[in-house]
């Protein structure tokens, strides 16, 4: 009835690969950001799947794993707030968020 943990981890890997594809192929910084969100969620899915797996052996491990996902969510929220602020500032400065032209901080 329940899908095995391997299936969830494989799905997580597929989602992560698709997100990485988006980071590499998209040219607008906002779309790169969306793809990063996809990768974060793929990682969360893997953590929750492992938490269910290890809950069969250790009572505390399962709930601790789910709590780690909770903390990842909070970090993602902070990241989105600051990242979108940076994007808005960049857009005001140059009316574009094309990542190919953003090379001012390159050494």
């Amino acid at each position, binding site marked *: *009835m329940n899908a095995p943990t391997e299936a969830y981890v494989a799905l997580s890997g597929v989602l992560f690969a698709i997100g990485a594809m988006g980071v590499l192929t998209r040219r607008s910084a906002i779309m790169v950001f969306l793809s990063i969100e996809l990768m974060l969620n793929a990682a969360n899915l893997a953590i929750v799947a492992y*938490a269910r797996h290890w809950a069969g052996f250790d009572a*505390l491990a399962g709930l601790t794993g789910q709590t780690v996902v909770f903390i990842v969510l909070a970090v*993602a929220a902070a990241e989105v707030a600051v990242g979108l602020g940076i*994007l808005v500032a960049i857009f*005001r400065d140059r009316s574009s968020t094309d990542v190919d032209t953003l090379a001012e901080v390159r050494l």
Partner: protein
Amino acid sequence: MVTFTVLAVVMVVGALGVVLLKQPVHAALSLVGTLLALAVTYVTLEAHFLAAIQVIVYAGAIMVLFLFVLMLLNVKDIGPRRALPGVRWAAYATAVVLAAAVGVVAFWDGRPAPDPAVVSLHLQGGSAGGIGDALFGELLLAFHLVGVLLLTGVVGAVALVQRRAESTHGAPKGGGGPAPEGSTPLPGGRSAGALGSGGAR
């Protein structure tokens, strides 16, 4: 297993939509669909509180913030610079197939699957009480650090927006923090402006 298959198909199609759709708003809405399907997947993994938080925080707050910024910036449709269609699709297929293979092989060592009854007993359905016990017990340091991080994020977002106070675009980002408290609508429809000026003060 049928549930998982349906959810997996929905999530992979949504993820491909995020990467491949031309219109940024369409891509963002595709990501919303993926996140909602992920919330249902959390329910099948007995993480009910996380499923609720996923819908509220991710599909609700974060994606609305994304859509606000997309509409604000009016991002144009820019495609890839060089067209290599055959190579691109081969690379996509290779990445996805290899990722799935790694996911299966890395974990396929023949260990027995845990007893579902024991798992349900230990996870307590992923309730808020159990998660709170872990959050204020074993992960107390991480909890404190996340608090500092969120404060830093709010201050950083406000500082980024405040640089040009005379710009009319400054108001919406004042509510960019993940926890916009005090957003009670004032009479006269000034709720958004009041939130922005409160953050900039």
